[in-house]
């Protein structure tokens, strides 16, 4: 046992015996998130049910200097909830109640373990919904969404998590309960709400969230356009945006993705197309009519070989069915896949997709592209076989190259999945030493002993040096006088 019996008993006293997991078999469940290539058995899992319990557990961990890794639903794709050496996993899954829906002020107040989709389901009776819709929405938790600043298919028009949250209650490592944001749309002083969103469990534990709800749109139309080349599809995306249209969603699938999903759900996609675009427009009927006419002519003008317009709700759902089933569909054609998440300026879409194909040839791995084209957020799925000894290492190297390519194109290594454990190395490419140190000083302001999710999201300079990403001059790191956290 890595943690003392005494510590475990104290945890049990705080949350109850049934909410503390210490046996190997049940600990296994918590050894990884959805990036299952990275695993580590936690020393202990604690499952609080109240805010007070979260505060008490954090105080205890703080006193004993025990690292804490928060966990929502474990659907993260970057190893963010991966347990750490000698640390506990703080699972928020029992705190899963919707505390209030306020239809007049259009808000929902939630415990952190509430599933993303459950919010919209509960709001539906009032003609409202919660806009950010990650593809994992049936499973992922709002606490995890806050920690990752999750996006979804509709964030081109409706924004990311950060644009849709009014208030977060955060417990610091010292057990202090902070209210960030308020009942209104802003608060004076530093915008700690924005800072907490996307902080990957490094600054505090999210124990309550108030989100903004939007009215359901009366009409939605989806256009499906097929292209003979990926370049043309990429150009069509830029043309739509330049024309002043703001589609609710604008997704691109390449030929490999089209074939994989067609074989799986039979959505009726044109399987010979090099790429398809799905363009969703919503609003009042008059708006949708005007926008779809414009979108159609832009698609045509950019060389679409076929344009289909959903004639009813069923067909619209069918158009989306393929996109939504894309990940599991790829899961059927390859034994394993590795999902990347870089974002680039839209104008480089075609060039970057071409270079990804070249990398795939070079590493002799398959790659499937299905992604949020409107935002320039790529999700190349690298296909590999975990049973072949070097395959994952190859996929990882190739993935790293793709992310570095995104940075070189003026983009970023992660659009919505977060850095976690996975992209620690690429952080050294995206940021300079002084910037990483600024991140560490910020972390230090919240968590001076570095107990919350240590080793994730922000690499130490030594780590960057080890990975060969940081220039070490005469054996010295930049700014040796500064403390390393």
């Amino acid at each position: 046992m890595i943690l003392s019996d005494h510590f475990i008993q104290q945890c049990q006293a705080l949350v109850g015996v049934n909410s503390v997991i210490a046996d190997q078999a049940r600990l296994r469940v918590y050894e990884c998130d959805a990036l299952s290539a990275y695993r580590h058995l936690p020393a202990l899992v604690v499952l609080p049910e109240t805010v007070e319990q979260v505060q008490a557990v954090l105080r205890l961990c703080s006193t004993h200097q025990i690292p804490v890794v928060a966990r929502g639903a474990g659907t993260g794709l970057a190893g963010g909830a991966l347990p750490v050496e000698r640390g506990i996993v703080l699972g928020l899954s029992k705190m899963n109640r919707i505390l209030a829906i306020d239809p007049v002020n259009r808000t929902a107040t939630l415990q952190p373990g509430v599933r993303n989709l459950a919010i919209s389901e509960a709001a539906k009776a009032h003609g409202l919904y919660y806009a950010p819709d990650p593809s994992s929405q049936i499973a992922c938790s709002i606490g995890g969404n806050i920690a990752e600043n999750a996006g979804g298919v509709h964030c081109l028009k409706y924004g990311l998590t950060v644009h849709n949250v009014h208030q977060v209650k955060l417990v610091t490592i010292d057990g202090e309960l902070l209210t960030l944001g308020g009942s209104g749309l802003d608060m004076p002083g530093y915008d700690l709400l924005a800072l907490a969103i996307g902080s990957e469990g490094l600054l505090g534990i999210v124990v309550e969230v108030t989100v903004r709800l939007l009215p359901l749109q009366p009409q939605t139309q989806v256009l499906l356009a097929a292209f003979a080349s990926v370049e043309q599809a990429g150009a069509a995306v830029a043309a739509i945006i330049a024309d002043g249209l703001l589609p609710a969603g604008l997704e691109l699938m390449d030929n490999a993705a089209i074939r994989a999903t067609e074989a799986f759900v039979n959505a009726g996609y044109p399987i010979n197309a090099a790429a398809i675009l799905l363009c969703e427009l919503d609003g009042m009927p008059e708006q949708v009519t005007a926008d779809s006419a414009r979108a159609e002519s832009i698609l045509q003008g950019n060389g679409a070989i076929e344009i289909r317009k959903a004639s009813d709700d069923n067909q619209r759902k069918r158009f989306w069915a393929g996109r939504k089933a894309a990940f599991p569909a790829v899961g059927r054609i390859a034994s394993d896949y590795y999902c990347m998440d870089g974002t680039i300026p839209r104008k480089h879409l075609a060039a970057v997709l071409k270079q990804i194909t070249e990398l795939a040839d070079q590493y002799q791995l398959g790659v499937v592209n299905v992604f949020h084209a409107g935002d320039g957020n790529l999700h190349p799925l690298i296909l590999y076989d975990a049973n072949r000894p070097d395959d994952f290492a190859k996929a990882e190297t190739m993935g790293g190259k793709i992310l570095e390519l995104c940075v070189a194109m003026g983009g970023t290594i992660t659009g919505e999945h977060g850095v976690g454990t996975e992209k620690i190395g690429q952080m050294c490419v995206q940021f300079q030493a002084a910037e990483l140190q600024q991140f560490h000083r910020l972390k230090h302001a919240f968590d001076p002993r570095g107990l919350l999710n240590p080793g994730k999201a922000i690499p130490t300079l030594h780590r960057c040096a080890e990975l060969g990403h940081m220039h070490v001059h005469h054996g010295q790191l930049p700014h040796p006088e500064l403390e390393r956290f």
Partner: protein
Amino acid sequence: MREQDLSEDLQKQVQQAAATGTALRIVGSDSKAFYGGACQATTPLPMAGHRGIIDYEPSELVITARSGTSLNNITSLLAQHRQMLAFEPPGFGEYATLGGTLACGFSGSRRPFVGSARDFMLGCKIINGGGEVLNFGGRVMKNVAGFDVSRLMVGALGSLGVLLEVSLRVLPIPKSELTLAYTLSAGEAVTKMNALSVRPWPLSASAYDGEQLRVRLSGAQAAVQAAARQLGGDTDVQGECFWQDLREQRLTYFQQPGNLWRISVAPASASLSLSGDWFLDWGGALRWLKTEEPAEAIHAATAKVGGYAVCFRGNNKTDWIRLDPALMALQQKIRAAFDPLKLFNPGRLHR
């Protein structure tokens, strides 16, 4: 004015200030000097010469510019491409700079419907209190690499660092806009604003001046016309001027002397029991109050409904904002993480 990159000069000035322990007053065009606490620094760090658009491609929906660039320059360039800063920042004068705009973080009437200044912030280059030039965020729509330092800069009144460059998301200007007006009591106006917001109308502003509720519709012409028909009310042909005057605080309500409080609450909140003249914006979520009530009473009444009050203009420079002690302590630590010597704008936001 000439485009020029003064980054190196500015960095040197900050480094020198750090070496000598001299506090700096960061100055855009001083248009918003009235806002916030009194700045105790006397040595100016002028930003207005550090100007110029660095990158703008309409199809990317992103603009990157130096912080001394005037807001007017930016909005007119965007307008040529039928795009806009959708958070409708007030200029409060002809010369307002991009840096000052974001350091204050003010947003106009479109805010509840499209987002605030910080929502449109994508990335920035800053000088921190150690005199280091740092880049955060980027020029792409989605970016979750590292902590969101760019958004933290918005509203920080320069107290965390000098903004050198800023990348903002922009949006298309709606094809058509129309303002409807209704004569209502204050209570009726709040009810109506919220009833409208629950339904999917193409709203882009709603404000109540004490007599009339004005509602702005935006979108394709056919949609705006259809919504106007269904909603009834009078068309305000002066609507566009009204929204501009509201943004720039040129309406009579804002011209009179006295303390002006800015109160942020849930949009459907019942009226607060504070005496004075009210003006409602943001569909009821932003409430201006002209009053002689003491700061204590205003902060207490607002906190009771989970909101916040800020003395926007007036003689109250000591109790102009109020935060709970734990939050205040944390904010001080964050400040120290960026500017340990308290060089930038001491007294403006935090001591």
